[in-house]
């Protein structure tokens, strides 16, 4: 924590306790294979189309569903086994969605059958984008947006900076941290592939300075004279929001409603780069990812490399289960993740963490009146007025909400975190935003 005020960052934001000490030094372990795997077809973009039938035997790494349209990605079998069901299963968000269920072959050695490796330099942009799409690769930071979509850039918007997001500003999560420490060569290999294809002039890697080992590991991989900059950033939430990261690195604001590309940037998560490197160099598609299992309810917190589709129940069991006082299960980080109604749901491509909380963390205190203390304004990285938005949301004043830029809110939750009166500010904003979206949809088709 030496001289944090000197480090680059965005303005506003909050400083939650990072709770990373439980897992940040734990080497990523492998999740043993379990009996059944459930893979929702929609894991980033439009749901994929199954290419297998019930009863069909599949090999680990084999494609089982193909992208349906451009903003969609393929899906691959995480294990050797048999397709036992093409039907609806519970998604972590609570919905019943179309899935492929695989029963693992208990007698298989589970060796990956790699796809053909490809030298990215031999591909033109369109083929490159298509190949990334075939690898089933999505952004592994949490939003699971199909990775290849970002690489198809229009000619009138040249890319100057390729930005790697190693901030991991969500408390508890350490999966990106461990990835940077343990696989820095793959991180940079993926970054070099993408930056070259995009025609970016340089690569910037932003890492919060509470990960000095990750910064050192990445820097050790940079060749002399190479235009790759590893920048330590202030530990502040939401540093990992891509617009905040761009502001921190370049001092530039991405205009509201625009994309990073509009200021000449493409932003990717560090874990995504490892997936890119594995796909091109080793022919391994995205069939597993690193998940941080942590929180006071978990008996043996760990960073685990988990085959996609593994039930959360089995993952928690691998981490010695949860304490009886556990009151809430969260998928993702504690600031933006979602509560699980059931742990019989699969790990997805976008699952960065599985957290278990006890009553001590999840108890919500009494709500008091808004004192207009202004703490939420000082927290909001988007420079909105959350106190006003929450009040307007309670009264259903949609026009006033829009005039106060409610749709600019990225729902990072810094306002709710900081409110001394315990007002569920971001929750009220979410309600307002979805109501406004519904209204717009109705107006479109009368």
């Amino acid at each position, binding site marked *: 924590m030496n001289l944090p005020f000197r480090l680059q960052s965005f303005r506003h934001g909050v400083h939650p306790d990072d709770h990373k000490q439980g897992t940040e030094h734990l080497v990523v372990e492998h999740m043993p294979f379990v009996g059944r795997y459930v893979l929702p077809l929609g894991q980033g973009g439009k749901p994929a189309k199954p290419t297998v039938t019930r009863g069909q035997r599949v090999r680990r790494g084999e494609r089982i569903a193909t992208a349906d349209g451009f903003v969609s990605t393929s899906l691959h079998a995480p294990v050797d086994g048999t397709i036992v069901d093409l039907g609806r299963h519970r998604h972590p968000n609570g919905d019943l969605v179309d899935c492929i269920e695989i029963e693992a072959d208990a007698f298989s050695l589970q060796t990956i059958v790699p796809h053909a490796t490809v030298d990215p330099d031999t591909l033109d942009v369109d083929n490159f984008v298509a190949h990334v799409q075939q690898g089933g690769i999505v952004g592994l930071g949490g939003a699971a947006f199909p990775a290849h979509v970002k690489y198809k850039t229009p000619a009138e918007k040249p890319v100057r900076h390729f930005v790697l997001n190693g901030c991991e500003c969500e408390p508890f999560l350490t999966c990106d941290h461990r990835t940077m420490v343990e696989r820095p060569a793959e991180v940079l290999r993926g970054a070099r592939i993408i930056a070259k294809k995009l025609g970016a002039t340089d690569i910037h890697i932003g890492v919060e300075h509470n990960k000095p080992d990750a910064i050192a590991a990445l820097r050790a991989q940079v060749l002399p004279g190479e235009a790759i900059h590893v920048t330590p950033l202030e530990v502040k939430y939401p540093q990992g929001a891509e617009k905040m990261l761009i502001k921190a690195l370049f001092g530039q604001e991405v205009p*509201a409603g625009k994309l990073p590309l509009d200021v000449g940037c493409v932003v990717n998560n560090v874990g995504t780069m490892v997936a890119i490197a594995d796909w091109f160099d080793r022919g391994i598609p995205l069939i597993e990812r690193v998940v941080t299992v942590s929180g006071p309810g978990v008996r043996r917190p760990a960073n685990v490399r988990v085959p996609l589709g593994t039930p959360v129940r089995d993952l928690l069991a691998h981490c010695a289960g949860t304490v009886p006082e*556990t009151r809430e299960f969260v998928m993702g980080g504690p600031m933006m993740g979602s509560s699980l109604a059931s742990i019989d749901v699969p790990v997805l491509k976008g699952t960065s963490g599985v957290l278990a909380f006890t009553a001590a963390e999840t108890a919500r205190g009494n709500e008091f009146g808004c004192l207009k*203390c202004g703490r939420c304004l000082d927290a909001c990285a988007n420079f909105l007025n959350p106190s006003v938005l929450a009040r307007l949301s309670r009264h259903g004043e949609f026009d006033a909400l829009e005039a106060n830029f409610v749709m600019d809110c990225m729902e990072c939750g810094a306002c709710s975190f900081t409110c001394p009166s315990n007002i569920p500010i971001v929750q009220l904003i979410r309600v307002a935003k979805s109501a406004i979206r519904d209204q717009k949809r109705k107006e479109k088709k009368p």
Partner: protein
Amino acid sequence: MTGRSVRTQLQAAPFLHTTLTTPRLMVEVLLCALVAALAATWYFGLVALLVVLAATLGAVAAEWLLPVRLPRGSTLRDGSAVLTGVLVALTLPPAIPLWMAALGGFVAIALGKQLFGGLGQNLFNPALVGRAFLQAAFPTAITTWVPPRGFFDVPGTTFAWPFLRGQLDGLSTATPLSQMKFDHIATPLWDLFVGDVPGSLGETSALVLLLLGLWLGLRRAFDWRIPVAVLLAVVVVGGGLHLVLPARNPSPLFLLCSGGLLFGTVFMATDPVSSPTTPRGAWAFGAGIGALVVVIRNYGGLPEGVMYAILLMNAASPLIERVTQPRPFGRRRPA
């Protein structure tokens, strides 16, 4: 793994929350106000505590008798009524009849807060509404200062029956501000600074108030921009006037240390409810208070102007807030 008896819950993110809560904030400010009350007891004797007690009882009674119907129940638990009562008392002179102090506390909560809909809804600082009411209703009692005669000595007016004023058993003296206003006599700065001067309970010792303000500011109990803006404006406006006409206008140091300026700055102007929430608004609000205080003191008919300066800026606060909304990230300043 998880037994059938275990009940889990579903909430919406974020799952983490800061440990700072509104009741804790109230308690922290309340403790600081009580330190100021103890300082008053040191200078004025036990009667100071009696006044604090009376005003607090009045405030709590109003909160209890006039509950705002909130689904979450009475706001008594957040401690804000107690704080308002103590703050009203600290604006009063030590010899005020206790029934007046209690009435002031009652009016502060009844008219200043509950009438608007309870905690967070009020336009004006409730404690100053109570004080303004007393000043309008009992102008003599609220401007009569009796020098302290002993720690346990209680002025004859203290236990006056309701609606009576009681017999003042001593000579009243002038405060530093009225001496300056009407006789152009400046009290030595050191006396002002340590607080050995006649005045209201909370406003005597600049030293104590500065320390309390510093503590609350470092604890982030209030928006530090407001007190900084008030003091800067007093120095700039008051200092400017002093440079132009030194015979007529007191020095900025005198302005800073005398009367209710520091007390009002630390405990009244920083009330979050009646001040703007926006950062730029906080600067404008504080600067307005500082400028108004200097203008009222130097050119108005009253020796003291802190109360009216803050109440006026309270009234302007919604407007200030409207024109100082932050510029959203990635947008031009809203027109």
